[in-house]
Every structure is written in C-alpha cells, then in structure tokens.
C-alpha cells in the first residue's frame, strides 16, 4: 500500500452567489480540485435557510498542501471575510496518491 501523506483540508462555508468567483480564486491559489455541496446554516450574519436564492450556502472542500491552504486562507481573509457570510476551517488529512494534490 502506498504510504500515506499528510495534506490540508480547507473547508469554506459561504454564500452560493460567490461560487463562480470564489472557485476561480481558489484555483489561482494553486488548488488542483475542489468539492462543493449545498448547505444552509446560521452564523453572525443571521440565518441562511436556503429558502431564497440569496439565502443559500455552499460548503467547499479543498485538499491541498500547506502552502496552498495558507494562500487560500489569506485570500479569503483579504477579499471576502468583511462583506460575505463566510466561515472557514482547516484540518490535517492523510491521503493516498499525494501527488494528485
């Protein structure tokens, strides 16, 4: 079995309306891929119950190396945190075929 490698998993929860632009910037940070699921929730900007287009959230996951993770987090902070409903967190994950990320 191939040895496992430690990578970062960055999870971002934010507004659906950001999807296109956010994805573009995430790729510019060096991410080779991402996964998106639809979500709803509540946070400092109130309830976002996915009932109305403007109230829909997405949950974006990116597996990447530490450098890309840092770049993404920096980018989020610079460009999005102030004006958008957004939460993000980072974890260590072990992956196979680490060259993919």
């Amino acid at each position, binding site marked *: 079995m191939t040895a496992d490698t430690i990578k970062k998993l960055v999870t971002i929860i934010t*507004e659906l*309306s950001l999807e296109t*632009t956010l994805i573009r910037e995430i790729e510019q940070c060096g991410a080779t891929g991402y996964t998106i699921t639809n979500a709803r929730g509540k946070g400092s900007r*109130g309830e976002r119950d*996915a*009932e*109305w*287009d*403007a109230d829909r959230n997405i949950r974006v996951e990116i597996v990447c190396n530490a450098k890309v993770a840092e770049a993404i987090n920096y980018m989020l902070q610079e460009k999005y945190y*102030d*004006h*958008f409903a957004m939460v993000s967190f980072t974890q260590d994950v072990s992956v196979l075929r680490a060259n993919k990320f």
Partner: protein
Amino acid sequence: MLDPIILFFIFGIAAGLLRSELRLPSQVYDFVSMLLLLTIGLKGGLELSKQEFSTIAPQMFAVFVVGLILPLFAYPILKIWGGFKRADAASIAAHYGSVSVGTYAVAVSYMASLNIHFEEHLPILLVVLEIPAIIVGILLAKGLSNGTNWKVVSHEIFAGKGIVLLIGGLLIGWFSGVEGIKTIEPLFFDLFKGILALFLLEMGLISASKISSLKQYGLFLVIFAITMPLLSALIGISMGLMFGFSIGGTAVLATLIASASYIAVPAAMRISVPEANPTLSLTASLGITFPFNILIGIPLYHQMAIKAHQIIGG
C-alpha cells in the same frame, strides 16, 4: 369576489406568519418561475410579430431613461433622509429602479380577469427596464472611477436566468407566430394562472419571512417601500398617456415601474457592491413593496389610469 391567485398570496402570508412548515420545494419554485418568465416572453413575442419596430423603439428608449432616473431620484432620499450608508442607499435605489416580473404577471392576470385590454408588447419594456438601474446603482455605490469589473457585471446581468428566459421567450414567440405556438399552449398558456397561483403562494411565504425581520430596520424603510412605488406609478401613468396606451396598458405600465426587483438586482449587487447589506433591500422589496403592489397597488394604479384617461380625454 376575490381573484383566487390573490387568495393564494394571502394564504402564503398567513401560513408564513403562523410559522407553518409549508414551502414550495426550491426546484419547483425555480420551475414555476421559469414557466412564468417563458410565458410572459412568449406572449410578448407573439405580439411583436404583429407590430412595427418603429412604434416600439421610442417607447423602449423612454423607458430606458426612466430606469436610469428612478435610482438617481431614490438614492438621495435613502442616503439623506434614511441615513443609510452609501452602498446600502445605492443598492436599495437600484432595486426600486428595476422591476419585478412576478408583479407584472399579477397585473396581467388582473387585467385578463376583468377583460381589460392592454398593450401586449409590454414584456419588451419589462426587459429594457430591468437593466439600467443596476448600472446606475453600481456607479452610485462606487463612483465613476471605481474598480468595477464591468465584464463580470454585464455577464451577471445578461446571463441571469430572468433576462435570458424573457428574451428567449420573446424570440421563440416572435419566430413561432400564433399558429406555431398552438401546440405548446396547454402548458404555457392554459396553466398560466394556476402556475401563477403557486408562485404567489411561495411569494407569500417568503414575504412573511421578510416581514418578520422588518422591525429591526425601522419605520423609514417601510415608508419608503410604500411611497416609492406610488411615486413611480405616477411616472408610469404619465408615460402610458404619453405613449397613447389604453387604460389597461397604462395601469400595467404603472405597475411595472412601481415594482421593485428581488431577483436580478440582488444577484448583481451581491457581486458588484458586496459591502451593501442584502437583507436590507430584500426586506423592503419582498417584505413590503411586493405585497403592497399585489394587494393594493394594482387596483389602485388601475383607478389612477382610469382617472388619468378621463382627465386627458375630457
């Protein structure tokens, strides 16, 4: 005797205020909206095939100018009297300078149920009216020398579902003609009022949820969200007279101009003016102006149109 579609709207508001779990499933809501937009487009397109472009062009131009002026008129009111931040004032102004297709659909259905004729090419003016206020809103928020990526913005506007479906419907109606369209009438025309009823049920539920978040935004927003459509309706009436519209057409045009956007403009503003609080403008537009126009506005603008025609005619 009340039109059942209005009853569906009231039912939606009531169910929402009573915190019922009732919701139109989101994809069904999208579907219902698509059908309404296509139907309105198709009807307009059928009419287009009977009209000279030269009669309509000046109306399109006039309406475009109104779409530029309305937000310029609303902005200072919101900024100075309302005390809103620049971005918020600009965003709300853009919502009220643009239009609501749902409100238009109810006006159409109102005229149809009273057998009142109106100019059927109004959907074209609807399309024209959606856009200018967005541009003005962005300029108001960011100034002329701002860093707006107009390519992204114009894609957001023109690639948005609403505009695309309206224009697509218009073109399909235009190319198909009355005979061609017959085979798809059962879905797009016969079901129209039933579909509109479901749409209004969901809009009632949404309005109710926005009404609940109203108190935190104060009285000014409520007053604005009622006064602004009334003033806009007056402009609409004048334009109707200017264009030589029938009473019905005048009233529908007034409704159109009095309506406030809650789909195209919020989406565009979120991308272009992210510092504006989206809850503010949606609360006004969905929580107050939409129900006001549906329940009170449309019959009122109809009366205004009658009066105006009497005055002019007399």
